[in-house]
């Protein structure tokens, strides 16, 4: 089991090094990415630590921590890096791989993505009432953000009935491949 994990870890690390330029070995740990990251106070591993963990072949540790799942893709990290390393693209690549290899750890966020994509598969467009209802049911927090929902309803800022894309069957087939 360990050997298989190590192989997967190496595979992902090699892909990141070969396909995202400039490669992570240009990083000299200046910390600017971390300094700019809005979520650094909730991350287990900071962006600069994630870059180091990749080089050290510790992809499993990254998958088991919260950083890549909470990352907002705000891209401050990429824009601040003096070596122009695309940290945001690397975070997303890791996130995509964690989904592909069923190692996506944050339950709430995983549920959110699943529900959102299922709704697109059904309607072709987003449908907030179904999204919020499903999320609240899955998280067990039935009255989460009820105050917000009431305000949105009061201002009539929500579509009560869904809109259907005419060609949605093809979208449904596409989305199913990734769920």
């Amino acid at each position: 089991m360990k050997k298989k994990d190590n192989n997967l870890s190496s595979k992902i690390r090699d892909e990141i090094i070969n396909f995202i330029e400039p490669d992570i070995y240009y990083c000299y740990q200046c910390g600017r990415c971390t300094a700019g990251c809005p979520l650094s106070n909730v991350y287990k591993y900071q962006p600069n630590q994630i870059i180091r963990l990749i080089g050290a072949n510790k992809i499993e540790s990254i998958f088991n921590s919260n950083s890549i799942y909470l990352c907002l893709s705000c891209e401050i990290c990429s824009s601040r890096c003096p070596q122009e390393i695309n940290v945001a693209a690397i975070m997303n690549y890791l996130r995509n791989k964690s989904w592909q290899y069923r190692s996506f750890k944050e339950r709430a966020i995983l549920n959110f993505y699943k529900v959102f994509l299922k709704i697109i598969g059904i309607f072709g467009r987003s449908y907030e009432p179904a999204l919020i209802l499903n999320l609240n049911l899955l998280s067990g927090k039935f009255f989460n953000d009820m105050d917000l929902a009431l305000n949105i309803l009061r201002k009539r800022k929500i579509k009560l009935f869904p809109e259907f894309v005419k060609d949605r069957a093809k979208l449904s087939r596409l989305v199913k491949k990734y769920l």
Partner: protein
Amino acid sequence: MIEEFQQDSQWEKIAYFPGCSLNSTAIDFNVSLKNLLKLLKIEFKEIDDWNCCGTTPAHNVSEELSIILSARNLLLAKKMGYENILCPCVSCYCKLLKASKVINSDLKPENRLEENRRDLVFKELKNMGFDINQKFNFRVYSIVHFLLLIKEKIGNKYLEIKNDVNNSKEFELLRGLKPVCYYGCVILRPDYVIKFDNIENPTSMESILKEVGIESLNFPFKTECCGAILSLTNKNIVIELSEKILSAAQDAGANCIIVCCPLCQQNLDLRQPQINNYSKSNYRFPIFYISQILGLALGLSFKNAMIDKLFVEPDIRI
């Protein structure tokens, strides 16, 4: 791959991609922008049968899925005869821009990963019934980039109407505005950037607002993230990050915030009571979309700019 901003970019025939949020929780952005474009006599056409671009969920699950969902919209625009697309929602803009960079004919994949990605995208588009053997040259515009391109039109229109004696409530609101411009984190920083402004201290929105006689205050939190899509799963993070923005606006002496992103507007506007609860403050900042303020300045009524949809209402009776 960075494109330099060109003042004379071709945009005359523009397709309009609203995206899901402009259709619902950001309906005020949608309607005020469309009314503004009509005022300026700019022709636009909404993409027929557009689909959700997948935004953060699709992008975080699979880059390929995100690109395919967005590319479908680009090809639908092409079917209508358009290759220039205006994307007011910033998240949709990034996704459609990325898709255009993958399928545009003049760009070559730089490595095996990008090549495989491009092949997969074309294969799925072919499965959906599109003709992939055409030349593609899509140009996707964000709201701020687009407003910069039509800045002169806006200025001219303003000069036309500003001398009309106007004691209306709309102008009273504009005269009392002391805004700061909040760009949000994404509009200047997608993977492939069209360099139209400084990433750390942008001034596009301020310069556009100057064309209609509105002076903005300086503000150090112009591009700090509000918490974005974590609003639905980790709202405490959003409240913490958004509170910093409101606090900075207060320190700058502002009485409102002008934004260009629907998600930022919702986080700062709808969650303002929750933010006040968290930080024991009493912020009261109306969060306007830039299209609403420009619309009001060029003669739109409160109703046509949908000012009544703001949750934190301005002090003027609408």
